């Protein structure tokens, strides 16, 4: 379905488009968004392809010394008693594993206490907040039964009774059974959710399942390319690619559409369940910046400091 829509857009505009993921908005600004897309496409069509900036890997191929070896990324409010974690900056431009540099990662996000019970709470919440229990059993009044007395009060030798809906009867009602659609919605406190994301990221980093990549640009949209890449690097059976926005490059979306176990996600869709479900987690550099900024902001926030602030309005996403 997604592939068909992509090819329609390419056919009509004759440029390399950015594919947008569907996302349900609170306000009815969907029309506004479509206009924005068209404008963006026309802007790209008017601009020449020669002015396009070369990727980090292209720069590396031309002159390995020109690419900066990033050893000290600026970390916000880093605790002076905790060492920042370090990770390689890799690339998806070749099947072989080439390292472009090294990054510093914030310890309050990527080296948090590995608490399994926080992960458990997050997983349970993700499962249960959407759940609706549809079980419904009829009670005495709901049974389709005549109201008359089943047998005379005395003389039968049996216990006295009234109508057939009684709970003592075999075919009678169930007392206090489940009643109707019942929502199991609840909100896990914010700190649990923030720390859940931090612990999941810490586990991925600690167990060597986290990889940071300059961008999700790949040379071809051939699914074999991506499969070879993942196999040579031993990234495992399932992988989750995370980019900072929901505008994804064309080639990777076509390639990964063939595989159910390799998935792409924007930063706003990052959740504990998906991080643990996929064996490896691949983040782009822009995604890492965004994740750090957001999680640090929310981990140090409380009701008092958020009382009159407009920092997290949903329409400023």
């Amino acid at each position, binding site marked *: 379905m997604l592939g068909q829509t992509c090819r329609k857009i390419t056919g009509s505009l004759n440029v390399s488009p950015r594919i947008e993921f569907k996302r349900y908005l609170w306000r009815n600004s969907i029309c506004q968004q479509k206009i924005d897309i068209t404008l963006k496409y026309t802007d790209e069509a008017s601009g020449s392809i020669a002015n396009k900036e070369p990727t980090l890997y292209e720069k590396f191929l031309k002159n390995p010394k020109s690419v900066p070896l990033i050893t000290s990324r600026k970390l916000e409010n880093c605790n002076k008693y905790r060492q920042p974690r370090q990770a390689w900056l890799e690339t998806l431009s070749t099947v072989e594993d080439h390292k472009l540099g090294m990054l510093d990662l914030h310890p309050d996000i990527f080296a948090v206490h590995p608490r399994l019970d926080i992960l458990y709470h997050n997983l349970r919440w993700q499962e249960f907040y959407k759940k609706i229990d549809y079980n419904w059993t009829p009670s005495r009044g709901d049974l389709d039964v005549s109201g008359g007395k089943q047998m005379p009060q005395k003389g039968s030798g049996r216990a006295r009774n009234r109508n057939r809906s009684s709970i003592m009867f075999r075919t009678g009602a169930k007392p206090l059974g489940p009643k109707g659609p019942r929502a199991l919605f609840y909100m896990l406190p914010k700190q649990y959710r923030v720390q859940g994301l931090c612990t999941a990221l810490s586990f991925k980093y600690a167990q060597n*399942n986290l990889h940071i990549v300059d961008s999700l640009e790949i040379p071809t949209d051939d699914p074999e390319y991506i499969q070879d890449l993942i196999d040579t690097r031993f990234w495992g059976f399932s992988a989750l690619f995370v980019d900072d926005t929901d505008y994804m490059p064309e080639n990777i979306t076509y390639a990964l559409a063939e595989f159910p176990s390799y998935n792409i996600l924007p930063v706003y869709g990052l959740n504990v369940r998906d991080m643990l479900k996929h064996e490896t987690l691949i983040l782009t550099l822009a995604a890492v910046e965004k994740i750090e900024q957001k999680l640090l902001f929310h981990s140090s926030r409380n009701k008092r400091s958020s009382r009159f602030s407009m920092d997290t309005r949903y329409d400023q996403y």
Partner: protein
Amino acid sequence: MGIEKALRLVKDLPRVALNNIKNSPMDQKKPHNLRRGWGKNKTHGRGHKGQGQRMTLPKLGFETGHKPFYLRVPQEYYYEGHHLKRQYPPLSLLRLQRMIDMGCLDPNEVIDISSICMTGHYHLHVDRRHYGINLTEEGAEKFSTPICIEVQWASEMTIATIERLGGVIMTRFYDPLSLIALQDPETYFKTGKPIPKCKLPPTDAVEYYSDPKFRGYLADPEKIAEERVALSQKYGYDLPDLSESDKLSLLLKRKDPRQIFFGLHPGWIVNLTEKKILKPKAEYLQEYYHS
């Protein structure tokens, strides 16, 4: 560094996935026992009739109407927190003079808390919140030796008696860990621990130890000299000139605020069997012990 150790452990353990995550046992609530099992029919473990079966038992501690045990004894706030306060067990000047006369203490050396404890006539129990010696006035008229003494608490009269005879008294604070080393140095050195760095007094004691009237070790020496003169005038004795005395070098002996033993610095380990002293080489240790 529990977090670092935990993350190192996690590295070698199997991959954390959806199938191996459990809740912590403290969070797992036990379900309410409905008592519907085998043998729990009919009365469900409640017996026959009465308050036990009918959920009308009285509250815990109730004694059928009269005042119960837990309300009979009233609360007494007079001694509240007394077991947590600092205690300075007293040592009178009479006993001190007796120790000097018997030969337990040498007036030609600085009389320290450790020298007094090692005589065996004075006991200090650090675990009972004893923070040092309180030199009391009893025997002030019989006291007759010029000494250089270091105590933790002294009143005006004791200071006057000692200074009248040409001696020197200092009040000095030691924290409990330092006192453990001071009260029995031999056993402390045998443990193999380094000599501790003496900590500064707590906020409610800082005033006392920086007051020249009580000859505190944190006070200004010039002000102490002024107070000596003032005290001599108050009690009506001639203040002897210490610069003319024979024991000048002894009377001028002072310890650093972080030092516990004369001649030994914090951070050193004393080996009594081999008669050696081990000093720390690492920079971070030297930084810590010199601060």
